[in-house]
């Protein structure tokens, strides 16, 4: 899946919980299920570790999309972490939407350790959505670019 230079290649940060989604991503890898290289994964112990500050920081530094992946509700390794994450991210993303950040740039997805296929599909879809939205110009730090 090589890209021509003209094509826009978004920067995408994926936060994956160690127990489910990161393992799901590993499974996608060992199953050789491809998704764009634009996605870079940051391993966190649990989706509840993801602070809104991290997400805004990513946008500030030029990310075009941010996706949070965790265990399916009810399956959290820490039993309740993703329930908190779900509320936090719902509210945060709703707020970003409210200030004019296209909602396609943010996403929460529950991916289990067995769902390599889902992981790869999700990433393909997400990258496609972000690509269609184009570069993140609304949340970037202008000073970095002068």
């Amino acid at each position, binding site marked *: 899946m090589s890209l021509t230079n003209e094509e826009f290649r978004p920067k995408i940060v994926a936060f994956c919980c160690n127990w489910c989604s990161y393992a799901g991503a590993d499974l996608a890898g060992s199953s050789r299920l491809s998704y764009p290289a634009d996605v870079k994964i940051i391993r966190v112990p649990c989706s509840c570790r993801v602070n809104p500050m991290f997400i805004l920081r990513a946008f500030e530094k030029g990310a075009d999309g941010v996706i949070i992946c965790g265990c399916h*509700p009810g399956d959290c390794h820490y039993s*309740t972490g993703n329930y908190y994450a779900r*509320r*936090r991210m719902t509210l945060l993303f*709703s707020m970003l939407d409210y200030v*004019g950040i296209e909602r396609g740039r943010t996403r929460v997805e529950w991916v289990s350790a067995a769902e390599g296929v889902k992981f790869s599909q999700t990433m393909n879809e997400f990258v496609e959505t972000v690509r269609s939205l184009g570069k993140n110009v609304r949340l970037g730090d202008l000073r970095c670019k002068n």
Partner: protein
Amino acid sequence: MQELISRLKELLESGSVQRVLGWKKGDFTFNPEPAYFNSAEELSEFVYDGFCGANLSKYMIKASNLEGVTAVLLKPCDTYSFNQLIKEHRVIREKAYIIGIGCKGKLSLDAIKAQGVKGITDIKGAEIDGDCNELKVETLYGEKTVSYKDSMLERCHVCKGKEHMIYDELMLESADTLDADRFTDVEIIENLTSEDKFTYFQRELSKCIRCNACRNVCPACSCRKCVFDSTKFDSEQKANVDPFHESMFHIIRAFHVAGRCTDCGECSRVCPQGIPLHLFNRKFIKDINEYYGVFQAGEDIGQTSPLTDYTLDDMEAEERR
């Protein structure tokens, strides 16, 4: 009003409270300031009228460290903040003697000026004993009359009600000031296109001077060290005057107070640039109400804040409208 002052005198003289936290007359009729009164004599400077907008709950954080009991005057909306502060262990209930005082709507000098009034030297009609219908404004350029209602702070138009959530005694009458829906403005923005939403907030937030007045006045922002002052996240920010940083500051601030913000409206009241900061907090409140059930911070100390709570079948982020 006289009754209130007598009662305060009585409290001070009997020694049941060591000080009163209320408002002191300013050098104009329209700029009283929050003040402590340590003796009955000092009460000659005391005032309580339509311009006493400050939410004194915030001052109680510090007053909780003082010796003895502080009698604090709280308007109905301020009591929500006080409750919330008790819940977060930021004030000590026993250190406060709460006099729940009535409120007939608080005034905004900016709202008066916005009605084309310049050079104001005196305003009459804001007295709490009065009927609060009309303000007589004396200016350097002549006398004007404006309606009380049109001169109120935004928050009073969406008043939470005349009930005090916590008090030791009640004084003075309140008036109904509610005449607008709290979430109308939020809804209007929600219905804009992404582009227009962004333009709207960009324009508003580009005015921000990062003076931190909104943060410092906010009863929910009572952190001993704010993340934006510390190196905890590599997040220290001071006057970056970059629109992104302003929106980051305000979004994070709103997020940090989400589920804790009582919608007291102080942030919008104090903003020197008139940024409608309450629109951020209200967005969270509206979402919380819609997604997790109606919740009013500060109403009930025993209630769990929606962000430290969950249900098994909460809505997914993607399902939001």
